[in-house]
């Protein structure tokens, strides 16, 4: 017999929770909404799976990249250099206004828009923590990232995704199943049986702890981290 699958649909988790919890069909939609909420929380606060990496085109008219519709939080805006992602420098002082002209957004240097930032100094006066490939500032209000000093026409963004594809057949890793089922019963208890809510909350915490054990680096990875910190060069 084949091993069970490493993925499960969200619909099947709802069905299993209803069946095990002896809940009728009238709880189906409510449990489904609980599950969508629970899965989002899990991706945001517990597991690493919720981070997506995408390549985005720069709007060179106003030097912005738009956030994908499922983006909850931008983790990184970066450029690839020799196969590695190098994060642009976050600059909160950057001006993010644009000027409207003939119905479209433009940058007007009269108002200081679109100007390169003068931040980096080479030589001994230079400071670290700067990626010379460019600067960015996240504009959550307009759901985009404003850029400066960027020459490239595309960038890589890593972001936390809401993670919920609106289909019953969305597949999620099977190791989340127990935590999500308990989450459903917990939410149900909060509304239907508050006396049991604390019990389910504790079970949920335990289930989250188990999930976090899976993210602990292996001994080999720990050793690599250690080895990266020293070299054969003599230390003075």
């Amino acid at each position, binding site marked *: 017999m084949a091993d069970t699958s490493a993925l499960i649909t969200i*619909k099947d988790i709802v069905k299993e929770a209803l069946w095990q919890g002896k809940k*009728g*069909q*009238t709880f189906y*939609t409510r449990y*489904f*909404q609980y599950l*969508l909420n629970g899965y989002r929380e899990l991706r945001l606060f517990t597991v690493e799976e919720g981070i997506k990496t995408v390549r985005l085109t720069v709007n060179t008219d106003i030097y912005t990249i738009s956030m994908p519709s499922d983006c909850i939080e931008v983790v990184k805006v970066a450029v690839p250099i020799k196969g590695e992602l190098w994060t642009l420098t976050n600059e909160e002082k950057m001006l993010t206004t644009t000027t409207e002209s003939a119905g479209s957004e433009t940058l007007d240097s009269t108002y200081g828009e679109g100007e390169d930032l003068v931040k980096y100094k080479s030589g001994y006066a230079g400071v670290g923590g700067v990626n010379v490939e460019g600067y960015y500032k996240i504009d959550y209000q307009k759901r985009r990232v404003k850029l400066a000093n960027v020459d490239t026409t595309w960038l890589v963004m890593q972001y936390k995704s809401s993670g*919920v594809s609106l289909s019953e057949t969305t597949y999620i890793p099977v190791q989340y199943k127990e935590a999500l089922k308990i989450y459903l019963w917990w939410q149900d208890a909060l509304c239907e049986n508050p006396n049991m809510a604390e019990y389910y909350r504790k079970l949920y915490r335990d289930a989250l702890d188990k999930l976090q054990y899976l993210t602990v680096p292996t001994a080999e990875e720990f050793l690599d981290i250690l080895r990266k910190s020293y070299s054969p060069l003599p230390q003075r």
Partner: protein
Amino acid sequence: MTKLQLIDLVRKRFNMEYLDKRYIELVIGRAWSQLLNDVYNKNVDYLDFYAKEYTAQTVTLNSTTGRYYANFPAQIVNLQDPAEGVRVVSTTDGSDLEFVPISATEARYMKDLEVDLIDTLIQYVVYYDKIEFFRNMTASIASEGVNMSLVIPFEEYDYDEKIPIPHGQDNNLLIMVAQFLQGTVPENELNN
């Protein structure tokens, strides 16, 4: 036991053979529905045993409301559940669409929530004479009709059909029938 046998049993058991069987039928019907509610009010899913399947029921578009609906092929028993006596609704081709009962109030609250946008979920609201489909019912599904499993009242059964009495409840059924029969005019006082 068939419906007719149960009616005859009641008429003989309570010495009411002088009454029309339709009167006894109505009385048993009240007791039978009450019994189903009493026994299964904690988990109406066990009522599936009492459901009768009706296949390929016509689904029609109400052009005023823009919603599809299907009339009941028979009356249903009212239960303490948004699904009432509707136990299962499914497509005729056995596709994986999920039909889920909700109340009309829930439908209003759920409108445009994430769960409301899931495209393989067909919500339905049960009214006394029909079910109305919210979201995701399409013309192609509607054209095939739907299957329904319904818990129907005692009166809807044919006289030669077997009646599923809840297990261990035969005695309670007769007690309830006796209670419903109280007040019936005795034979010697009938003006016939």
